[in-house]
């Protein structure tokens, strides 16, 4: 099944559009930022592939000087019972990616969570604000340069009288 997917992607998008790797039987495809929406739409609508379920969307901080942030899409096909992973890299200054809410509506809250935790802005998202932390919080916790114990005073606490 993995070979079939690689074949379909290469025939539609060309050789350079996708780098693939396999680990423990799972296929990971790295897609450039500009083509991600069309690749996802192709994967969803192609009758042989039918990846109609977005299982997970998460951010990843590689902490490298180039291509610091990545967003990982874990897709699942209900008909073929198969999984695939897509990965998109973006830069550190003003990380931006196109939104997936047009393809799968479930990406809505996942993208809000990625924005909350990493600061990656998804263009075209209907409601781009934080989901877990209060709106006034200024940092993005899951970045590697944010300390685990937090920054004292960054979140307000009611007074004990």
């Amino acid at each position, binding site marked *: 099944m993995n070979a079939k997917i690689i074949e379909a992607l290469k025939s539609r998008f060309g050789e350079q559009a996708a780098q693939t790797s396999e680990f423990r039987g799972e296929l990971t495809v790295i897609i450039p930022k500009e083509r991600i929406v069309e690749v996802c739409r192709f994967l969803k609508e192609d009758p042989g592939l039918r990846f109609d379920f977005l299982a997970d969307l998460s951010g990843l901080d590689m902490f490298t000087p180039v291509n610091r942030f990545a967003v990982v899409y874990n897709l699942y096909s209900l008909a073929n019972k198969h999984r695939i992973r897509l990965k998109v890299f973006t830069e550190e200054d003003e990380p931006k990616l196109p939104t997936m809410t047009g393809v799968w509506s479930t990406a809505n809250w996942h993208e809000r969570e990625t924005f909350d935790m990493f600061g990656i802005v998804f263009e075209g998202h209907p409601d781009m604000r934080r989901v*877990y932390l*209060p709106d006034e919080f200024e940092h993005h916790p899951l970045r590697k340069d944010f300390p685990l*114990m937090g920054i004292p005073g960054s*979140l*307000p*606490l*009611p007074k004990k*009288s």
Partner: protein
Amino acid sequence: MGLEHALGDSFVTTKLDLAINWCRKNSLWPMPMGISCCAIEMMSFAGPRFDAARFGSEVFRFSPRQSDVMIVAGTTTFKMAKVVRKIYDQMPDPKWVIAMGACTSSGGMYRTYSVVQGIDQFLPVDVYVAGCPPRPDNLLNALITLQQKVQRGESKGSFPAYIGEKKLNEPHDLPSISG
């Protein structure tokens, strides 16, 4: 508590005090602030096996205006702290707080950026219960300890407050409601 303040120092209210404290301790109606896993053990504490109703906690009033003791059960985050404080301020005097579990006593196993390391940073706490989660028997023990405290007439958060043996003559700062 409030009785002496109302009637002044010249009245001897010992027996009446004892009687009123006995009534208070045997009908402590909890307000369950059930936030996370400890809430499930609190439900078991109210459930059929470890029945809290036989100790006087007949109903779990979810309205703060009708309850005596607030059992904070679960990890309190900074976002939730404001809400907990608001609910605490809405409770009428005399009121007590039981901090249930490790997360409310000291932050528990979460030493992270979003968890308050113990609710005593913003609430006066009367009884701390250890455990992650504490067994319902442990919570019953806490309730009985609280009842003993009520019998003695002590309350950390009510107005006026007793600190040790000394009674404060002037009221402490009223808690702010606009938190």
